[in-house]
């Protein structure tokens, strides 16, 4: 894995479901067909809310359609980050309509450090490949459901 490598990318119409699942919250955007709009389901602090996609939610959702490695890391970097306090681990899953193509799954570790910009490291478990990614991939988790 090299810096700048595109790890994953998909056409928007080839996505039927996106899920970001953390320890305390989960967002699932689903639709029945490529032509249909996404509906987002948020689960936060035990409460479940469901809403139609807004332009803000759509924009945040699109951040998961293309993942590019900002910087390649050694496999232990992810473990080191996870060992730090205040680290959220979020699982990203993108599912398309074709059953022959495996869903894309990525583990994301987000460190919360007020002195620094949000930092997100990603880990492809199956390939033991670690790299940092744009923090905007987690934008969907921060948005309200109206």
């Amino acid at each position: 894995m090299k810096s700048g490598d595109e790890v994953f990318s998909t056409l928007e119409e080839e996505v039927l479901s996106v899920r970001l699942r953390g320890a305390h919250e989960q967002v699932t955007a689903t639709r029945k067909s490529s032509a249909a709009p996404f509906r987002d389901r948020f689960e936060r602090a035990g409460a479940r809310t469901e809403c139609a996609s807004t332009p803000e939610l759509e924009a945040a959702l699109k951040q998961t359609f293309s993942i590019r490695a900002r910087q390649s890391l050694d496999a232990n970097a992810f473990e080191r980050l996870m060992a730090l306090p205040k680290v959220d681990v979020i699982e990203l899953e993108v599912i398309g309509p074709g059953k022959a193509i495996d869903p894309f799954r990525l583990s994301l570790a987000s460190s919360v450090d007020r002195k620094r910009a949000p930092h997100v490291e990603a880990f492809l478990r199956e390939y033991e490949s670690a790299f940092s990614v744009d923090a905007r991939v987690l934008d969907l988790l921060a948005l309200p459901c109206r």
Partner: protein
Amino acid sequence: MCFARVVQGGLNRVIGQAASARLATSGVFAKELEQAIQLFQRMGLGLASADGRVDPRGKTWRGLADTLSLKRIIVSLDNQWLDALEDGRRVFGFPCVSGDGAHPTDKGTFRVSRKAHPYRSRTYDVDMNYAMFFTADGKAIHQYHGFAGLTAVRFLRHNASDWQAAQGTARDQVRLAWLGAARRSQCTCALQLDAEWHADLRILRRPGGVDGSHALRWRCLRLRRLRAVRRRTP
């Protein structure tokens, strides 16, 4: 005909998803194509004289290419060769291995729908890095990870087409492959460069009318190799 099809495909991408307005990608220069070109010249490029013509390297072609950043990958099954084109200009070309007789590669025009790297096929249990999927049933252009050298694969297939099937390697794919380290970096670049999601993918039975010289080069190369093998064989 090939060029007309490219223009039709390009204009369809400008038109978008409105199915009623889309042009048939027949490769035939019909009245509706001329009208669509005129509309693009007037509305898209702001040209005063909309003549409904697209000349290679002409103003309309450049305008269409600039609008769409046209990128195409052409795979010739006959020559086992892959070409990457940008705005009608060949930027990369390298040998590839397509699916064998038992698992033929689909022919037609496709769009890359998904990219993944690294990628390992569960179906075949082999690495298929830099995978670019172009069919819903999982066919992809991807990096070659066979245990045999590409030269051997190609030579053996030439003589025994089911050799690869007997080895149980991945065959249901357009297999991208290269011969050496120098090629490898070139292929990697090509994949990254041309795997734009708007890239059209054409898989042809016969070489396209883009640049036939590489096909000739490859035939000469193959002939030289065959002769060398024959010389070594007692």
